[in-house]
Protein backbone atom coordinates (compact mmCIF):
# COMPACT_ATOMS: atom_id res chain seq x y z
CA UNK A 1 0.00 0.00 0.00
CA UNK A 2 3.03 2.26 0.49
CA UNK A 3 3.31 3.12 -3.21
CA UNK A 4 0.00 1.89 -4.54
CA UNK A 5 -3.00 4.05 -5.31
CA UNK A 6 -4.86 5.59 -2.39
CA UNK A 7 -8.25 4.90 -3.94
CA UNK A 8 -9.17 2.11 -6.33
CA UNK A 9 -12.52 1.90 -8.06
CA UNK A 10 -13.49 -1.06 -10.21
CA UNK A 11 -16.59 -0.79 -12.35
CA UNK A 12 -18.35 1.42 -9.83
CA UNK A 13 -21.82 2.51 -10.87
CA UNK A 14 -24.50 4.37 -9.02
CA UNK A 15 -27.98 5.24 -10.22
CA UNK A 16 -30.49 7.70 -8.80
CA UNK A 17 -33.77 6.55 -10.22
CA UNK A 18 -33.29 6.67 -13.97
CA UNK A 19 -30.24 8.90 -13.80
CA UNK A 20 -26.86 7.17 -13.90
CA UNK A 21 -24.58 9.32 -11.74
CA UNK A 22 -21.56 7.01 -12.01
CA UNK A 23 -21.19 4.74 -15.00
CA UNK A 24 -18.81 1.78 -14.53
CA UNK A 25 -15.98 3.92 -13.26
CA UNK A 26 -12.68 2.10 -13.08
CA UNK A 27 -10.00 4.32 -11.69
CA UNK A 28 -6.89 4.42 -9.52
CA UNK A 29 -6.29 7.65 -7.67
CA UNK A 30 -2.51 7.85 -7.23
CA UNK A 31 -0.59 9.22 -4.28
CA UNK A 32 0.20 12.92 -4.19
CA UNK A 33 -2.08 15.79 -5.08
CA UNK A 34 -4.84 14.84 -7.48
CA UNK A 35 -7.38 17.20 -8.97
CA UNK A 36 -10.91 15.94 -9.44
CA UNK A 37 -12.63 17.95 -12.12
CA UNK A 38 -15.92 17.87 -13.90
CA UNK A 39 -18.87 20.06 -14.76
CA UNK A 40 -22.00 20.09 -12.59
CA UNK A 41 -23.71 16.71 -12.72
CA UNK A 42 -20.54 14.93 -13.82
CA UNK A 43 -20.64 12.62 -10.81
CA UNK A 44 -17.95 14.20 -8.61
CA UNK A 45 -20.16 14.48 -5.53
CA UNK A 46 -21.49 10.96 -5.99
CA UNK A 47 -17.96 9.64 -6.33
CA UNK A 48 -16.91 11.44 -3.14
CA UNK A 49 -19.93 10.09 -1.26
CA UNK A 50 -19.13 6.57 -2.40
CA UNK A 51 -15.46 6.96 -1.47
CA UNK A 52 -16.33 8.35 1.98
CA UNK A 53 -18.74 5.48 2.59
CA UNK A 54 -21.75 7.77 2.75
CA UNK A 55 -23.41 6.07 -0.19
CA UNK A 56 -23.06 2.45 -1.28
CA UNK A 57 -22.25 1.89 -4.94
CA UNK A 58 -24.96 0.21 -7.01
CA UNK A 59 -22.37 -2.01 -8.67
CA UNK A 60 -18.63 -2.54 -8.59
CA UNK A 61 -16.13 -2.45 -5.77
CA UNK A 62 -13.73 0.04 -4.29
CA UNK A 63 -10.95 0.37 -1.76
CA UNK A 64 -9.87 3.48 0.06
CA UNK A 65 -6.44 3.16 1.71
CA UNK A 66 -7.00 -0.57 1.50
CA UNK A 67 -10.35 -0.41 3.33
CA UNK A 68 -13.71 -1.24 1.78
CA UNK A 69 -15.95 1.76 2.55
CA UNK A 70 -19.08 -0.33 2.04
CA UNK A 71 -18.09 -2.68 4.85
CA UNK A 72 -16.33 -0.21 7.13
CA UNK A 73 -17.36 3.36 6.31
CA UNK A 74 -16.40 4.79 9.70
CA UNK A 75 -12.85 3.38 9.42
CA UNK A 76 -12.50 5.10 6.06
CA UNK A 77 -13.72 8.41 7.48
CA UNK A 78 -11.36 8.00 10.45
CA UNK A 79 -8.37 7.68 8.13
CA UNK A 80 -9.30 10.40 5.69
CA UNK A 81 -9.96 14.08 6.22
CA UNK A 82 -12.84 15.76 4.48
CA UNK A 83 -13.11 19.50 4.06
CA UNK A 84 -16.65 20.30 2.90
CA UNK A 85 -17.45 23.06 0.47
CA UNK A 86 -20.19 24.66 2.53
CA UNK A 87 -20.15 26.09 6.04
CA UNK A 88 -20.01 23.34 8.63
CA UNK A 89 -19.51 24.42 12.21
CA UNK A 90 -21.06 23.78 15.60
CA UNK A 91 -22.43 26.95 17.16
CA UNK A 92 -21.07 28.22 20.44
CA UNK A 93 -17.60 26.71 19.98
CA UNK A 94 -14.42 28.73 19.57
CA UNK A 95 -12.03 27.93 16.77
CA UNK A 96 -9.80 25.82 18.97
CA UNK A 97 -12.74 24.02 20.59
CA UNK A 98 -14.23 23.32 17.20
CA UNK A 99 -11.03 21.82 15.79
CA UNK A 100 -10.39 19.90 19.00
CA UNK A 101 -13.94 18.52 18.89
CA UNK A 102 -13.32 17.37 15.31
CA UNK A 103 -10.23 15.58 16.58
CA UNK A 104 -12.13 13.86 19.39
CA UNK A 105 -14.79 12.71 16.92
CA UNK A 106 -12.01 11.32 14.74
CA UNK A 107 -10.71 9.25 17.64
CA UNK A 108 -8.04 11.41 19.26
CA UNK A 109 -7.87 11.47 23.06
CA UNK A 110 -9.24 14.75 24.44
CA UNK A 111 -5.90 16.23 25.53
CA UNK A 112 -4.12 15.20 22.34
CA UNK A 113 -6.97 16.66 20.29
CA UNK A 114 -6.63 20.01 22.03
CA UNK A 115 -2.88 20.04 21.51
CA UNK A 116 -3.29 19.14 17.84
CA UNK A 117 -5.97 21.81 17.45
CA UNK A 118 -3.50 24.50 18.52
CA UNK A 119 -0.79 23.13 16.21
CA UNK A 120 -3.05 22.87 13.20
CA UNK A 121 -4.62 26.29 13.76
CA UNK A 122 -1.13 27.76 13.85
CA UNK A 123 -0.36 25.98 10.62
CA UNK A 124 -3.37 27.37 8.77
CA UNK A 125 -2.78 30.86 10.16
CA UNK A 126 -5.64 31.17 12.66
CA UNK A 127 -3.57 31.29 15.83
CA UNK A 128 -4.59 34.86 16.63
CA UNK A 129 -8.32 34.21 16.44
CA UNK A 130 -8.43 30.71 17.87
CA UNK A 131 -10.39 31.81 20.96
CA UNK A 132 -13.08 33.58 18.97
CA UNK A 133 -16.33 31.78 18.20
CA UNK A 134 -16.41 30.26 14.73
CA UNK A 135 -19.69 32.00 13.87
CA UNK A 136 -17.84 35.32 14.24
CA UNK A 137 -15.20 34.32 11.67
CA UNK A 138 -15.01 35.76 8.16
CA UNK A 139 -15.57 33.52 5.13
CA UNK A 140 -11.84 33.05 4.69
CA UNK A 141 -11.32 32.15 8.34
CA UNK A 142 -14.15 29.62 8.21
CA UNK A 143 -12.56 28.10 5.14
CA UNK A 144 -9.31 27.72 7.05
CA UNK A 145 -10.96 26.35 10.15
CA UNK A 146 -12.59 23.70 7.96
CA UNK A 147 -9.16 22.83 6.62
CA UNK A 148 -7.85 22.64 10.19
CA UNK A 149 -10.75 20.36 11.16
CA UNK A 150 -9.91 18.08 8.25
CA UNK A 151 -6.23 18.01 9.24
CA UNK A 152 -6.46 17.69 13.01
CA UNK A 153 -6.25 13.89 13.14
CA UNK A 154 -3.42 13.81 10.59
CA UNK A 155 -5.32 11.87 7.93
CA UNK A 156 -3.59 9.72 5.36
CA UNK A 157 -5.73 11.19 2.61
CA UNK A 158 -7.40 14.59 2.37
CA UNK A 159 -10.47 15.45 0.33
CA UNK A 160 -10.74 19.18 -0.24
CA UNK A 161 -14.04 20.23 -1.75
CA UNK A 162 -13.71 23.66 -3.37
CA UNK A 163 -11.22 24.89 -0.73
CA UNK A 164 -10.91 28.36 -2.26
CA UNK A 165 -14.60 28.96 -2.81
CA UNK A 166 -15.64 32.50 -1.89
CA UNK A 167 -12.15 33.69 -1.01
CA UNK A 168 -10.53 36.91 -2.17
CA UNK A 169 -7.34 36.54 -4.27
CA UNK A 170 -5.03 36.92 -1.26
CA UNK A 171 -6.98 34.42 0.83
CA UNK A 172 -7.07 32.04 -2.10
CA UNK A 173 -3.32 32.24 -2.50
CA UNK A 174 -2.79 31.53 1.19
CA UNK A 175 -5.03 28.48 1.19
CA UNK A 176 -3.38 27.18 -1.99
CA UNK A 177 0.00 27.73 -0.32
CA UNK A 178 -1.11 25.47 2.50
CA UNK A 179 -2.39 22.85 0.09
CA UNK A 180 0.84 22.96 -1.93
CA UNK A 181 2.89 22.76 1.26
CA UNK A 182 0.92 19.75 2.46
CA UNK A 183 1.32 17.91 -0.81
CA UNK A 184 4.86 19.04 -1.57
CA UNK A 185 6.84 19.30 1.65
CA UNK A 186 4.82 16.93 3.81
CA UNK A 187 3.89 14.35 1.19
CA UNK A 188 0.24 14.40 2.11
CA UNK A 189 -2.08 12.62 -0.31
CA UNK A 190 -4.95 14.85 -1.28
CA UNK A 191 -7.80 15.04 -3.72
CA UNK A 192 -8.75 18.57 -4.69
CA UNK A 193 -12.24 19.02 -6.12
CA UNK A 194 -12.56 22.40 -7.73
CA UNK A 195 -14.22 24.28 -10.51
CA UNK A 196 -11.25 26.61 -10.59
CA UNK A 197 -9.03 24.86 -13.08
CA UNK A 198 -6.18 27.22 -12.41
CA UNK A 199 -6.14 26.14 -8.76
CA UNK A 200 -5.89 22.52 -9.80
CA UNK A 201 -3.27 23.30 -12.43
CA UNK A 202 -1.07 25.05 -9.87
CA UNK A 203 -1.55 22.58 -7.05
CA UNK A 204 -1.93 19.06 -8.38
CA UNK A 205 0.42 16.66 -10.07
CA UNK A 206 -2.35 14.46 -11.47
CA UNK A 207 -5.88 15.03 -12.58
CA UNK A 208 -9.07 13.03 -13.05
CA UNK A 209 -11.70 14.55 -15.26
CA UNK A 210 -15.25 13.27 -14.95
CA UNK A 211 -18.01 13.89 -17.44
CA UNK A 212 -21.47 12.33 -17.49
CA UNK A 213 -20.55 9.83 -14.78
CA UNK A 214 -17.49 8.51 -16.60
CA UNK A 215 -13.77 9.19 -16.48
CA UNK A 216 -13.15 11.43 -19.47
CA UNK A 217 -9.44 12.06 -18.89
CA UNK A 218 -6.92 11.04 -16.26
CA UNK A 219 -3.19 11.03 -15.76
CA UNK A 220 -0.44 13.36 -14.75
CA UNK A 221 -0.89 17.00 -15.60
CA UNK A 222 1.62 16.66 -18.47
CA UNK A 223 -0.14 13.61 -19.85
CA UNK A 224 -3.54 15.25 -19.75
CA UNK A 225 -2.28 18.44 -21.32
CA UNK A 226 -0.33 16.51 -23.96
CA UNK A 227 -3.49 15.19 -25.49
CA UNK A 228 -3.08 17.61 -28.42
CA UNK A 229 0.53 16.95 -29.34
CA UNK A 230 -0.14 17.18 -33.12
CA UNK A 231 -1.03 20.84 -32.85
CA UNK A 232 1.61 23.45 -33.53
CA UNK A 233 1.76 27.13 -32.80
CA UNK A 234 3.32 28.89 -35.80
CA UNK A 235 4.36 32.53 -35.86
CA UNK A 236 5.79 34.52 -38.76
CA UNK A 237 5.92 37.90 -40.48
CA UNK A 238 3.93 38.79 -43.56
CA UNK A 239 0.48 37.97 -44.91
CA UNK A 240 -0.53 34.62 -43.39
CA UNK A 241 -3.20 33.99 -46.08
CA UNK A 242 -0.98 32.16 -48.62
CA UNK A 243 0.63 30.20 -45.76
CA UNK A 244 -2.77 29.05 -44.56
CA UNK A 245 -3.70 27.91 -48.06
CA UNK A 246 -0.43 26.04 -48.49
CA UNK A 247 -0.82 24.27 -45.17
CA UNK A 248 -4.41 23.27 -45.95
CA UNK A 249 -3.22 21.94 -49.31
CA UNK A 250 -0.71 19.81 -47.35
CA UNK A 251 -3.56 18.24 -45.36
CA UNK A 252 -3.26 20.39 -42.21
CA UNK A 253 -6.02 22.01 -40.21
CA UNK A 254 -5.36 25.71 -39.73
CA UNK A 255 -6.94 28.21 -37.37
CA UNK A 256 -5.88 31.85 -37.44
CA UNK A 257 -5.51 33.24 -33.94
CA UNK A 258 -4.26 36.67 -32.85
CA UNK A 259 -0.50 36.74 -33.51
CA UNK A 260 -0.14 33.14 -34.61
CA UNK A 261 -1.53 30.23 -36.56
CA UNK A 262 -2.70 27.08 -34.83
CA UNK A 263 -1.85 24.21 -37.12
CA UNK A 264 -3.05 20.66 -36.77
CA UNK A 265 -0.60 18.50 -38.67
CA UNK A 266 -1.35 14.97 -39.93
CA UNK A 267 -0.26 12.31 -37.43
CA UNK A 268 3.42 11.45 -37.62
CA UNK A 269 4.43 14.26 -39.94
CA UNK A 270 5.76 16.54 -37.21
CA UNK A 271 6.82 20.01 -38.28
CA UNK A 272 7.74 19.06 -41.88
CA UNK A 273 4.55 20.39 -43.57
CA UNK A 274 5.10 23.78 -41.93
CA UNK A 275 8.73 24.12 -43.01
CA UNK A 276 7.94 22.94 -46.57
CA UNK A 277 5.10 25.46 -46.92
CA UNK A 278 7.20 28.29 -45.47
CA UNK A 279 10.13 27.52 -47.78
CA UNK A 280 7.92 27.82 -50.82
CA UNK A 281 6.42 31.17 -49.80
CA UNK A 282 7.69 34.71 -49.18
CA UNK A 283 6.72 34.43 -45.53
CA UNK A 284 9.18 34.88 -42.68
CA UNK A 285 8.79 31.91 -40.39
CA UNK A 286 9.71 33.02 -36.87
CA UNK A 287 8.82 30.09 -34.62
CA UNK A 288 7.26 26.65 -34.62
CA UNK A 289 6.43 24.92 -31.36
CA UNK A 290 3.98 22.51 -29.80
CA UNK A 291 0.70 24.10 -28.86
CA UNK A 292 0.57 24.57 -25.09
CA UNK A 293 -2.75 23.21 -23.99
CA UNK A 294 -4.26 24.59 -20.81
CA UNK A 295 -6.29 22.43 -18.49
CA UNK A 296 -9.24 24.54 -19.47
CA UNK A 297 -8.85 23.48 -23.10
CA UNK A 298 -8.72 19.84 -22.08
CA UNK A 299 -11.71 20.34 -19.81
CA UNK A 300 -13.82 21.95 -22.51
CA UNK A 301 -12.82 19.32 -25.03
CA UNK A 302 -13.48 16.44 -22.66
CA UNK A 303 -16.81 17.78 -21.48
CA UNK A 304 -18.06 18.38 -25.00
CA UNK A 305 -17.05 14.92 -26.21
CA UNK A 306 -16.60 12.58 -23.25
CA UNK A 307 -15.17 9.17 -23.74
CA UNK A 308 -13.43 6.54 -21.72
CA UNK A 309 -9.83 7.35 -20.97
Amino acid sequence: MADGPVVTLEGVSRDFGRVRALDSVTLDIPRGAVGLLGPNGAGKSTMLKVILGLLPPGAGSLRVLGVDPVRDPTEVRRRVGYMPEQDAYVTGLTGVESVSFAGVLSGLPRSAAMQRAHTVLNYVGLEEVRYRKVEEYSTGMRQRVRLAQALVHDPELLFLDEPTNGLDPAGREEVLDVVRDLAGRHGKNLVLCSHLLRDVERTCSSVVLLAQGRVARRGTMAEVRGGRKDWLRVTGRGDPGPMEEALRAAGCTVTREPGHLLVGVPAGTGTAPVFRAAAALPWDLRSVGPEEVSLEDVFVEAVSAPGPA
Partner: protein
Amino acid sequence: MPILEQGYEPYRGPVDRGAARFLAIAGAAIKRNRHRYAWILLLLSWIFGSSVEYFFVFFVYAVPAMGIQGGPGGEAFFQAFVDHPNFHSDMMASQVFWALAMATVVGAGEIAEDFRTGALVFYLGRPVTRLDYVLGKSAAVSVAVLAVTLAPTLLLFCAQALFEGSWTWLRDHARVPLAAATMSLLVCVFASGFVLGISSLVRRRRWATVTVVAVLVGLTVVASVLAPARAWTSDREQEQAAQAVRAATTPEERKAAYRRLSDALDPLGSGSAMAEWRALSPGSLLAACGRDLFGNPLPGNFPPGRHWALALGVPVLLLGVLARRVRGVEVVS
Protein backbone atom coordinates in the same frame (compact mmCIF):
# COMPACT_ATOMS: atom_id res chain seq x y z
CA MET B 1 -2.02 37.13 9.20
CA PRO B 2 1.00 34.82 9.07
CA ILE B 3 0.49 31.50 7.50
CA LEU B 4 2.69 28.42 7.51
CA GLU B 5 4.65 30.02 10.34
CA GLN B 6 4.96 26.66 11.96
CA GLY B 7 5.26 23.63 9.75
CA TYR B 8 2.81 20.81 9.69
CA GLU B 9 3.49 18.14 12.26
CA PRO B 10 2.31 14.57 11.87
CA TYR B 11 0.40 13.00 14.75
CA ARG B 12 1.95 9.91 16.28
CA GLY B 13 -0.23 9.49 19.34
CA PRO B 14 -2.92 6.96 20.16
CA VAL B 15 -6.20 6.80 18.28
CA ASP B 16 -9.42 5.51 19.77
CA ARG B 17 -11.33 3.30 17.37
CA GLY B 18 -14.22 2.90 19.81
CA ALA B 19 -17.79 3.38 18.76
CA ALA B 20 -18.97 5.65 21.60
CA ARG B 21 -18.74 8.85 19.56
CA PHE B 22 -22.23 9.76 20.67
CA LEU B 23 -20.87 10.50 24.13
CA ALA B 24 -18.58 13.18 22.67
CA ILE B 25 -21.56 14.70 20.84
CA ALA B 26 -23.63 14.67 24.02
CA GLY B 27 -20.75 16.16 26.02
CA ALA B 28 -20.30 19.00 23.55
CA ALA B 29 -24.03 19.78 23.59
CA ILE B 30 -24.12 19.90 27.40
CA LYS B 31 -20.96 21.99 27.55
CA ARG B 32 -22.40 24.46 25.06
CA ASN B 33 -25.57 24.89 27.09
CA ARG B 34 -24.05 25.40 30.49
CA HIS B 35 -23.25 29.07 29.86
CA ARG B 36 -26.66 29.95 28.50
CA TYR B 37 -28.66 32.33 30.68
CA ALA B 38 -31.93 30.52 29.92
CA TRP B 39 -30.49 27.29 31.26
CA ILE B 40 -29.05 28.86 34.40
CA LEU B 41 -32.33 30.66 35.07
CA LEU B 42 -34.29 27.47 34.61
CA LEU B 43 -31.95 25.56 36.90
CA LEU B 44 -32.44 28.12 39.65
CA SER B 45 -36.21 28.08 39.14
CA TRP B 46 -36.22 24.32 39.33
CA ILE B 47 -34.20 24.26 42.55
CA PHE B 48 -36.58 26.77 44.08
CA GLY B 49 -39.74 25.19 42.65
CA SER B 50 -38.99 21.58 43.41
CA SER B 51 -37.76 22.24 46.92
CA VAL B 52 -41.41 21.93 47.96
CA GLU B 53 -40.84 18.16 47.89
CA TYR B 54 -38.22 18.48 50.55
CA PHE B 55 -40.51 20.59 52.72
CA PHE B 56 -42.82 17.59 53.06
CA VAL B 57 -39.96 15.45 54.31
CA PHE B 58 -38.71 18.30 56.45
CA PHE B 59 -42.07 18.80 58.19
CA VAL B 60 -42.79 15.11 58.59
CA TYR B 61 -39.39 13.96 59.81
CA ALA B 62 -37.05 16.78 60.60
CA VAL B 63 -39.44 19.02 62.57
CA PRO B 64 -40.42 16.32 65.11
CA ALA B 65 -36.80 15.15 65.27
CA MET B 66 -35.79 18.67 66.28
CA GLY B 67 -38.49 18.71 68.96
CA ILE B 68 -40.32 21.58 67.27
CA GLN B 69 -44.09 21.47 67.41
CA GLY B 70 -45.74 22.22 64.05
CA GLY B 71 -48.84 24.36 63.72
CA PRO B 72 -52.25 22.87 64.51
CA GLY B 73 -52.72 19.89 62.24
CA GLY B 74 -49.70 20.79 60.16
CA GLU B 75 -47.83 17.63 60.87
CA ALA B 76 -50.81 15.42 60.04
CA PHE B 77 -51.35 17.34 56.82
CA PHE B 78 -47.82 16.65 55.59
CA GLN B 79 -47.82 13.13 57.02
CA ALA B 80 -50.96 12.33 55.02
CA PHE B 81 -49.25 13.36 51.80
CA VAL B 82 -45.99 11.57 52.56
CA ASP B 83 -47.74 8.35 53.53
CA HIS B 84 -50.00 8.44 50.54
CA PRO B 85 -49.29 5.58 48.08
CA ASN B 86 -49.24 8.09 45.23
CA PHE B 87 -46.62 10.26 46.93
CA HIS B 88 -43.60 9.24 44.85
CA SER B 89 -45.41 8.87 41.55
CA ASP B 90 -47.10 12.25 41.96
CA MET B 91 -43.85 13.85 43.01
CA MET B 92 -42.22 12.52 39.86
CA ALA B 93 -45.21 13.69 37.87
CA SER B 94 -44.69 17.17 39.25
CA GLN B 95 -41.09 17.00 37.94
CA VAL B 96 -42.31 16.26 34.44
CA PHE B 97 -42.98 19.97 33.99
CA TRP B 98 -39.36 20.77 34.84
CA ALA B 99 -38.13 17.88 32.73
CA LEU B 100 -39.96 19.16 29.67
CA ALA B 101 -38.76 22.70 30.37
CA MET B 102 -35.15 21.47 30.69
CA ALA B 103 -35.46 19.40 27.53
CA THR B 104 -36.83 22.44 25.69
CA VAL B 105 -34.01 24.73 26.80
CA VAL B 106 -31.26 22.19 26.16
CA GLY B 107 -32.62 20.38 23.11
CA ALA B 108 -34.92 22.68 21.17
CA GLY B 109 -32.13 24.47 19.35
CA GLU B 110 -29.72 21.59 19.03
CA ILE B 111 -30.95 20.12 15.78
CA ALA B 112 -32.30 23.39 14.35
CA GLU B 113 -28.94 25.13 14.76
CA ASP B 114 -27.07 22.16 13.33
CA PHE B 115 -29.23 22.32 10.21
CA ARG B 116 -28.67 26.06 9.91
CA THR B 117 -24.90 25.99 10.30
CA GLY B 118 -24.22 22.76 8.44
CA ALA B 119 -22.95 21.10 11.62
CA LEU B 120 -24.44 17.82 10.41
CA VAL B 121 -21.87 17.85 7.62
CA PHE B 122 -19.22 18.50 10.27
CA TYR B 123 -20.36 15.41 12.17
CA LEU B 124 -21.13 13.05 9.33
CA GLY B 125 -17.92 13.82 7.42
CA ARG B 126 -16.15 12.16 10.35
CA PRO B 127 -16.39 8.61 11.69
CA VAL B 128 -19.80 9.41 13.12
CA THR B 129 -22.95 7.63 11.98
CA ARG B 130 -26.39 9.18 11.83
CA LEU B 131 -27.37 6.92 14.73
CA ASP B 132 -24.44 8.29 16.78
CA TYR B 133 -25.69 11.78 16.07
CA VAL B 134 -29.30 11.12 17.13
CA LEU B 135 -28.13 9.16 20.20
CA GLY B 136 -25.72 11.94 21.18
CA LYS B 137 -28.33 14.66 20.99
CA SER B 138 -30.86 12.47 22.85
CA ALA B 139 -28.27 11.74 25.53
CA ALA B 140 -27.67 15.47 26.05
CA VAL B 141 -31.38 16.03 26.58
CA SER B 142 -31.61 12.94 28.78
CA VAL B 143 -28.89 14.15 31.14
CA ALA B 144 -30.87 17.34 31.75
CA VAL B 145 -34.08 15.33 32.20
CA LEU B 146 -32.50 12.83 34.60
CA ALA B 147 -31.09 15.67 36.68
CA VAL B 148 -34.60 16.89 37.46
CA THR B 149 -36.48 13.57 37.63
CA LEU B 150 -34.39 10.67 38.85
CA ALA B 151 -31.88 12.54 40.99
CA PRO B 152 -34.38 14.34 43.30
CA THR B 153 -36.66 11.31 43.58
CA LEU B 154 -33.84 9.03 44.63
CA LEU B 155 -32.53 11.68 47.01
CA LEU B 156 -35.98 12.01 48.52
CA PHE B 157 -36.31 8.26 48.83
CA CYS B 158 -32.93 7.98 50.55
CA ALA B 159 -33.81 10.79 52.96
CA GLN B 160 -37.12 9.11 53.83
CA ALA B 161 -35.44 5.74 54.27
CA LEU B 162 -32.90 7.27 56.64
CA PHE B 163 -35.57 9.03 58.71
CA GLU B 164 -37.85 5.99 58.80
CA GLY B 165 -34.95 3.71 59.67
CA SER B 166 -37.02 0.57 59.32
CA TRP B 167 -36.68 -2.50 57.11
CA THR B 168 -40.44 -2.75 56.90
CA TRP B 169 -40.67 0.66 55.30
CA LEU B 170 -37.87 -0.23 52.88
CA ARG B 171 -39.57 -3.50 52.00
CA ASP B 172 -42.90 -1.76 51.45
CA HIS B 173 -41.28 0.83 49.19
CA ALA B 174 -38.76 -1.43 47.47
CA ARG B 175 -40.42 -0.77 44.15
CA VAL B 176 -39.80 2.98 44.29
CA PRO B 177 -36.15 3.20 42.99
CA LEU B 178 -36.79 0.89 40.06
CA ALA B 179 -40.09 2.57 39.22
CA ALA B 180 -38.40 5.98 39.46
CA ALA B 181 -35.62 4.86 37.12
CA THR B 182 -38.11 3.46 34.59
CA MET B 183 -40.29 6.55 34.81
CA SER B 184 -37.22 8.75 34.30
CA LEU B 185 -36.25 6.72 31.26
CA LEU B 186 -39.74 7.12 29.86
CA VAL B 187 -39.61 10.88 30.41
CA CYS B 188 -36.18 10.95 28.72
CA VAL B 189 -37.51 9.14 25.66
CA PHE B 190 -40.62 11.30 25.53
CA ALA B 191 -38.81 14.60 26.05
CA SER B 192 -35.97 13.77 23.63
CA GLY B 193 -38.29 12.56 20.90
CA PHE B 194 -40.72 15.42 21.36
CA VAL B 195 -38.20 18.25 21.55
CA LEU B 196 -35.62 16.99 19.04
CA GLY B 197 -38.26 15.88 16.56
CA ILE B 198 -39.90 19.28 16.52
CA SER B 199 -36.48 20.98 16.51
CA SER B 200 -35.57 19.14 13.31
CA LEU B 201 -38.42 20.87 11.49
CA VAL B 202 -37.24 24.41 12.30
CA ARG B 203 -34.00 26.13 11.32
CA ARG B 204 -33.29 28.48 14.22
CA ARG B 205 -32.89 27.90 17.95
CA ARG B 206 -35.29 30.70 18.85
CA TRP B 207 -38.05 29.47 16.59
CA ALA B 208 -37.49 25.89 17.62
CA THR B 209 -37.91 26.88 21.28
CA VAL B 210 -41.03 28.91 20.50
CA THR B 211 -42.50 26.01 18.51
CA VAL B 212 -41.84 23.42 21.21
CA VAL B 213 -43.26 25.67 23.93
CA ALA B 214 -46.28 26.51 21.79
CA VAL B 215 -47.03 22.83 21.15
CA LEU B 216 -46.58 21.89 24.83
CA VAL B 217 -48.66 24.78 26.14
CA GLY B 218 -51.24 24.34 23.39
CA LEU B 219 -51.77 20.66 24.20
CA THR B 220 -52.00 21.37 27.92
CA VAL B 221 -54.51 24.18 27.36
CA VAL B 222 -56.68 22.04 25.07
CA ALA B 223 -56.60 19.21 27.61
CA SER B 224 -57.50 21.59 30.42
CA VAL B 225 -60.38 23.09 28.45
CA LEU B 226 -61.81 19.72 27.43
CA ALA B 227 -61.32 18.15 30.87
CA PRO B 228 -61.13 21.20 33.15
CA ALA B 229 -58.94 20.98 36.22
CA ARG B 230 -61.75 22.28 38.43
CA ALA B 231 -63.88 19.33 37.42
CA TRP B 232 -61.32 16.68 38.31
CA THR B 233 -63.32 15.89 41.38
CA SER B 234 -66.83 16.87 42.33
CA ASP B 235 -67.11 20.00 44.44
CA ARG B 236 -69.29 18.12 46.87
CA GLU B 237 -66.71 15.40 47.46
CA GLN B 238 -64.00 17.98 47.93
CA GLU B 239 -66.13 19.94 50.38
CA GLN B 240 -66.90 16.78 52.36
CA ALA B 241 -63.20 15.98 52.58
CA ALA B 242 -62.44 19.50 53.78
CA GLN B 243 -65.21 19.26 56.41
CA ALA B 244 -63.73 15.97 57.65
CA VAL B 245 -60.37 17.74 58.16
CA ARG B 246 -62.06 20.48 60.18
CA ALA B 247 -64.09 17.97 62.23
CA ALA B 248 -61.17 15.69 63.07
CA THR B 249 -60.22 15.70 66.73
CA THR B 250 -57.53 13.03 67.12
CA PRO B 251 -54.28 12.83 65.11
CA GLU B 252 -55.47 9.56 63.51
CA GLU B 253 -58.75 11.13 62.43
CA ARG B 254 -56.96 14.15 61.10
CA LYS B 255 -54.48 11.99 59.14
CA ALA B 256 -57.31 9.97 57.58
CA ALA B 257 -59.17 13.17 56.71
CA TYR B 258 -56.14 14.67 55.00
CA ARG B 259 -55.67 11.48 53.04
CA ARG B 260 -59.27 11.69 51.85
CA LEU B 261 -58.68 15.30 50.88
CA SER B 262 -55.57 14.39 48.89
CA ASP B 263 -57.57 11.69 47.09
CA ALA B 264 -60.21 14.25 46.22
CA LEU B 265 -57.53 16.54 44.83
CA ASP B 266 -55.93 13.79 42.75
CA PRO B 267 -54.89 15.47 39.48
CA LEU B 268 -55.74 12.39 37.50
CA GLY B 269 -58.99 11.59 39.29
CA SER B 270 -61.71 13.22 37.35
CA GLY B 271 -65.28 14.22 37.72
CA SER B 272 -65.11 15.43 34.13
CA ALA B 273 -67.20 13.65 31.55
CA MET B 274 -64.29 13.94 29.11
CA ALA B 275 -61.50 12.71 31.39
CA GLU B 276 -59.86 10.80 28.54
CA TRP B 277 -58.80 14.14 26.99
CA ARG B 278 -56.45 14.72 29.94
CA ALA B 279 -54.05 12.44 28.05
CA LEU B 280 -53.55 15.23 25.54
CA SER B 281 -51.51 17.07 28.12
CA PRO B 282 -47.95 15.62 28.14
CA GLY B 283 -47.75 16.14 31.90
CA SER B 284 -50.91 14.15 32.64
CA LEU B 285 -49.95 11.53 30.08
CA LEU B 286 -46.61 10.82 31.75
CA ALA B 287 -48.18 11.07 35.22
CA ALA B 288 -50.60 8.32 34.26
CA CYS B 289 -47.73 6.12 33.08
CA GLY B 290 -45.97 6.89 36.35
CA ARG B 291 -48.98 5.60 38.31
CA ASP B 292 -48.71 2.29 36.46
CA LEU B 293 -44.98 2.04 37.03
CA PHE B 294 -45.28 2.77 40.76
CA GLY B 295 -48.10 0.23 40.99
CA ASN B 296 -50.76 2.78 41.91
CA PRO B 297 -54.25 2.57 40.46
CA LEU B 298 -55.40 5.01 37.83
CA PRO B 299 -58.80 6.65 38.20
CA GLY B 300 -61.53 4.41 36.79
CA ASN B 301 -62.55 6.87 34.11
CA PHE B 302 -59.03 7.20 32.70
CA PRO B 303 -58.88 5.07 29.51
CA PRO B 304 -56.56 2.08 30.09
CA GLY B 305 -53.56 1.64 27.80
CA ARG B 306 -54.11 4.78 25.79
CA HIS B 307 -51.58 6.77 27.80
CA TRP B 308 -48.89 4.18 27.09
CA ALA B 309 -49.63 4.18 23.38
CA LEU B 310 -49.34 7.97 23.32
CA ALA B 311 -46.35 8.23 25.66
CA LEU B 312 -44.33 5.82 23.51
CA GLY B 313 -45.90 6.46 20.12
CA VAL B 314 -45.44 10.24 20.01
CA PRO B 315 -41.67 10.24 20.71
CA VAL B 316 -41.05 7.29 18.40
CA LEU B 317 -42.94 9.09 15.64
CA LEU B 318 -41.03 12.33 16.20
CA LEU B 319 -37.68 10.54 16.45
CA GLY B 320 -38.60 8.99 13.10
CA VAL B 321 -39.10 12.50 11.72
CA LEU B 322 -35.69 13.47 13.10
CA ALA B 323 -34.02 10.37 11.62
CA ARG B 324 -35.60 11.12 8.25
CA ARG B 325 -34.43 14.73 8.33
CA VAL B 326 -30.90 13.67 9.28
CA ARG B 327 -30.89 11.02 6.55
CA GLY B 328 -31.77 13.69 4.01
CA VAL B 329 -28.66 15.75 4.73
CA GLU B 330 -26.18 15.81 1.86
CA VAL B 331 -22.69 15.64 3.35
CA VAL B 332 -21.13 16.20 -0.05
CA SER B 333 -23.11 18.77 -2.01
